């Protein structure tokens, strides 16, 4: 009996998930047929998560909102290229992360970006002389995340911070679930090294 409750609960959750997936598929197909209202509903469903990921990658809310707008417009324009209509969320998030990476590319290629990476990698961020404010700590975390290799950063942001399913993250990163776990593991180790003085 004690085994049965979780099973029923899981079955119910699976049913609800299937219903949501079916509803979403309907919206995607309608949007593909040019229904902007359906696309608007899809956008509302995903825009908060997209904005959160964009914020972690770009570091400021305004840019994140603009990026999500661009991503949604781009998604709508290219809906015909979405081959698996039931994978809209992952596809949209891939657009978001690609746009975010392309936006920050110049900085990453610059000497300043290299210097920051080297600083973070060597774990020599200045130790605080007084307790950090929340903003200062946030800024330090952001810089540490910015200094991570691309896949580690994306895996960390989407899985460890935004709690997206590993399967979805794997799909977005075009890698295996095991690789996602490894990227998260390595990213967290590197963050620990970079932020050790703050913890």
């Amino acid at each position, binding site marked *: 009996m004690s085994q049965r409750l979780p099973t029923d609960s899981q079955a119910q959750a699976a049913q609800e998930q299937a219903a949501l997936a079916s509803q979403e598929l309907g919206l995607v197909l309608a949007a593909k047929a040019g229904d*902007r209202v359906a*696309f*608007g509903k899809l*956008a*509302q469903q995903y*825009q*908060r998560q997209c*904005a*959160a990921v964009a*914020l*972690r990658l770009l570091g400021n*809310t305004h840019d*994140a*909102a603009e990026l*999500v*707008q661009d991503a*949604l*417009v781009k998604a*709508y*324009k290219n809906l015909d290229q979405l081959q698996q209509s039931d994978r809209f969320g992952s596809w949209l998030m891939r657009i978001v992360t690609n746009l975010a990476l392309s936006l920050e590319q110049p900085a990453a290629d610059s000497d300043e970006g290299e210097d920051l990476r080297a600083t973070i990698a060597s774990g020599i961020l200045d130790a605080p002389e007084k307790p950090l404010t929340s903003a200062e*700590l*946030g800024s330090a*975390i952001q810089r540490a995340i910015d200094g991570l290799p691309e896949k580690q950063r994306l895996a*960390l942001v989407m*899985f*460890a*911070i*935004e709690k997206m399913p*590993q399967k979805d993250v794997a799909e977005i990163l075009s890698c295996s679930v095991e690789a996602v*776990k*490894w990227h*998260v*593991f390595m990213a*967290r*180790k590197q*963050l*620990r090294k970079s*932020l050790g003085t*703050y*913890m």
Partner: protein
Amino acid sequence: MKNDTQHLDFLISQYVDGCLEGTSKKSVEQKMLADPGARALYVEHRETQDLLDDWGNRIPLIHWDEFDQKLAARLEHEVVGGERASIFRRWIRPMAAAAALFVAATLGYAWHALSHTPGETPERSVARASTERPHAVVEYPEAAGGNHPSHAGVVVEEAGAQLGTVAGGRALHTTIDRPADEEAAQSLRENVAYGLQNVADKSNLANTLPSAVAVGELTTRPASDDKSNDAAFPQ
């Protein structure tokens, strides 16, 4: 040894993420219970993840109503605008052709009006097709204004290639000569007819007659007097 430690570290990382189940989970828990080093690894991962969770709780301060409105406007502007642009591209050429032909027809009529001698008796006649080459003959009774033998007409060209000739022989007829194909000839006919029928003030055409016009890829120019054309316009 190092590999074993790293493997344990990796397992503990997954444990912190809640990714382990069954025997793997129990195995890691037993290891942490027995091994202070394993517990230290757990604490490292746990602290780092707690920091990330705390930091990740910051919700982007975005005004979603404004966001939705802006998105709707952008979709309307960019996507619908794109569709409009596409429709525009689809129809611009035929519309440009129609406009050019209207101008050509106007030119033809105006040229005729210029060469008309007042006082002559208007007469109605219809040009007959020449047997030497294809002609489309169009009658415009409402364009009657004179019977003076006219100029050679207006050549309509598209991208440098002659599409046809709009020639006004007499006030009452216009002959479309040398059409590129039957479809073009029909389009030329319809638009010349439209043009002539919609010239409100025919008397002013002479004052506005340019030597050549261009609309889109269509251009018109006065045709030089050509005896073979005149053959289509019996005097």
